[in-house]
């Protein structure tokens, strides 16, 4: 093996090994299939950037390998002694600036796109908040809630709250479990679940993410990007799942001893199943609280 082929051979060997050792079908070069509009935006951005990245890698390393192969030391060759003339780098700077600006514009558009909450689809709950999820603070959401609330009143008084207001769920992280509080949850009327979030399909869901202890993060790749859960801050994200199914995610912020257990699941069910789940959960929790209260009363009596 001659010296110049070593890096090339190494690269080929790596790629070959990587290809051999992983079953070909299992390799996915993109994030998991998106099931929410914001996840789709993320996927698009990823694909665009991956293409740009691969082109840049090929350009840099192709030029490097060509330069090394062509201008390696040979007997009888004399090195040229040129350096950059005035303005020699201007085309390079110009081209790179144009690329950087183009990527930036694309990035701003994609970011806005991912934050835009889409209205509910035909199979979803009726709520249609036309808001943008703020990274921080509740102002846009409150506006949306007021708007949706007004719309709900017009639609009729018979609907329950969960059907008309935007589906706004509090996701509260703690070491090492997520607690989800559904619309209508109050201390007296308990409506929450742990670990697994159940939502209706085709319905925009706004998550108010916070933490009670340390930093965590919400990351369900099929339903959008990461959001950090910080104590003392409420951060919003949203998703609109387009398909019934169960999506898994894991926190990506180290949070202590059993941090890998800090996982989350989102069960996307049909609207009727969702309403049944909510009623069932409310009844089960009321029953459980009643039992606890009974025990407490008994203890108090004793």
């Amino acid at each position, binding site marked *: 093996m001659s010296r110049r082929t070593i890096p090339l051979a190494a690269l080929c060997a790596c790629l070959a090994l990587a290809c051999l050792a992983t079953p070909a079908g299992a390799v996915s070069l993109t994030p998991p299939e998106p099931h929410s509009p914001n996840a789709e935006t993320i996927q698009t951005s990823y694909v665009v950037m991956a293409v740009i990245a691969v082109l840049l890698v090929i350009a840099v390393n192709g030029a490097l390998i060509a330069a090394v192969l062509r201008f390696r030391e040979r007997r009888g060759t004399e090195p040229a002694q040129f*350096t950059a003339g005035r303005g020699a780098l201007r085309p390079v700077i110009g081209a790179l600036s144009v690329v950087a600006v183009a990527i930036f514009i694309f990035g701003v558009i994609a970011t806005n796109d991912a934050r835009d909450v889409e209205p509910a689809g035909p199979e979803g709950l009726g709520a249609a908040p036309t808001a943008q999820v703020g990274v921080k603070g509740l102002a846009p959401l409150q506006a949306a809630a007021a708007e949706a609330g007004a719309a709900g009143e017009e639609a009729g008084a018979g609907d329950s709250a969960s059907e008309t207001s935007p589906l706004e769920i509090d996701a509260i992280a703690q070491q090492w479990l997520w607690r989800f509080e559904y619309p209508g949850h109050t201390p007296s009327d308990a409506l929450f679940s742990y670990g697994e979030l159940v939502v209706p399909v085709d319905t925009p869901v706004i998550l108010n993410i916070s933490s009670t202890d340390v930093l965590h993060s919400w990351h369900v790749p099929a339903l959008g990007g990461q959001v950090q859960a910080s104590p*003392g801050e409420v951060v919003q994200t949203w998703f609109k799942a387009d398909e019934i199914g169960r999506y898994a995610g894991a926190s990506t912020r180290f949070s202590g001893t059993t941090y890998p257990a800090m996982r989350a699941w989102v069960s996307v069910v049909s609207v009727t199943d969702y309403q049944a789940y909510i009623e069932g959960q409310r009844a089960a929790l009321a029953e459980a609280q009643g039992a606890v209260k009974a025990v407490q009363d008994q203890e108090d009596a004793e």
Partner: protein
Amino acid sequence: MTPPAATRTVRPEVVTREVTAPRPSWIERATSADHKSVGLLYIATALTFIALAAVQFALMRAQLIVPENSLLQPEIFNRLMSTSAITFVVFGCVPLALGLISYIVPLQIGARGVALPRLNQLSYYLYLAGGVTLFASFLYTAPESGTAALPPLSDLSFSGSNGADAWIAGTALATLGFVCFAINLVVTTRKLRAPGLAWRRMPLFTAAATVIGYILLVIGPAMIAALTMLEVDRRFDGVFFDPQEGGAPLLYEHLSYIFMTGVYLIVFLAAAGAISEILPTFARKPIFSRRAVAGCFAAIAGLGLLAWMQNMYIAPLNEGWTLMAMAFALSLLVPIGVLFYNWIATIWGGTLELRAASLYALVAIATISFGLVGELAYSLIPVGWALDNTVASQGDTLYVLVGGGVIGGFAALHYWFPKMSGRMLGEGLGKAALLTIFVGLNLYVLPMFLAGLEGQPVDAYEYYENTGVDGYNLIASIGAFVLVIGILLELGNAAHSWNNGNRARGHDPWAGSTLEWFALSPPPPHNFDAVPDVRSGEPLHDIRESIAIRERAFVAPAALERVASPVPAGAVEPAADAEAPGGDEPPAEPEAPTGPEAPESAVDEAPADSDPAARDSDDAEDPPVA
């Protein structure tokens, strides 16, 4: 061992009663404030910490080789994880760069020492104390609050053990040392440059080092402040980062990311500086545009630091801040692209000699390019949402840190080893280690990238079956072992070559163009007998040229010839010197400093004698450079 009285011969003696006995060499080295001693201590300690980090990394990958493995307890894994990142970067890669800077920069600028030698020495001992503090915690309880010790997890209520205090104190001590180092570095490069060494003629490693000095002056105090506040929170009832009392954990996140970003830039810039020295030397061609490369270093430092929030897209920040971070991160494309363009244009048209040093430099460029291009992709906010804090971004960071800190660091070590020890760093083993490191690194990072796309989080001691990342982790672990073996191989190579390597061919084995090759190998305590006069960006080429002109003009009288020629050649290294002039260098190559006498004579006569010649070459060379 006194010989018997009968056999003792009477001979004159030097009375040494009044002279202090020479101290053992290790005491001399440990107590000397000479920048070369300090540099060597830095390099040796940093390489030790890199080896330690590599072993920690291998242990962690052994735990992750199969899903739900129980090889290491979670606590043990978390302790390794919490210390390995800081060990590798803050106690390994950065001090390796600083050690090289401490050794080489004063030589490159033609100084006889550094401006504040005691401060330089203090900086090393602060760094060493930091490292000892951190690793001594393994005797009681090692820190387990994550790679950056983010509060609230690192607050007393969640990390009750003293390990977190050791992490804070160790990092703060080392950072304080780096700040001391930076003060000395900035003063030295401003005040002690040889006459004529204007900024536009600055050797590029020194240019990078100066930028690194300024980076450290920005990030060091920020990190020390953050760590102090954290420690006050922990032990003195502070509420800086306590959300329950109105504190802001986000503040620590900002400060620590400023520090981490700066450290990342330092590792990259040190490697870039070394590469910018190595490529012109081995391609036998001046750097394409010295001004552009130096400008790129400054631009990368400035824009890169301003883009620290690029790592915090998931944190609760206002939208404007994340857009600003994205703008700065994307603007880095320009200086980094220009830098790569310069490197390739420097090789273009030259005659690149493929030795271990240049091969390490080339592989470092390739590896860093993979990592930086990935970083560019993560700069886009939606991509950052998907991939930050996954093993994909971790692997990507490793591309730059291993590519810059380890591969680039070894390139620099191969290049300057003859200057430091007078011996060559083993070429064959060096190339074998390079191949091993490169294969291992790619074998680790590529599967980790794919696993990161699936959402595998960083820093976790286990992953679960049926999450689609089993195969990736298996390959990545194998790759990690190969990588660690490669690193340890090269470290062994360096340790072995220090005393047993082949003798370097003369004092300037690479025919370098900067002033460190004008000194002896290893340089005497005062570096140069006479401070050379610098007239272009490549002062040693000027000196060689003027010597060649003088030699052509000089016709030795028959009587002098006997005396003149053999004496310097035979003085110290007959075998090495016999090779030097007849080597594969261009014919104009003189044997500039070959014996200990040579530099003296070269310096005494060259500037005075060859003024017209040097001026001519200055005029010829300057316009393209400036």
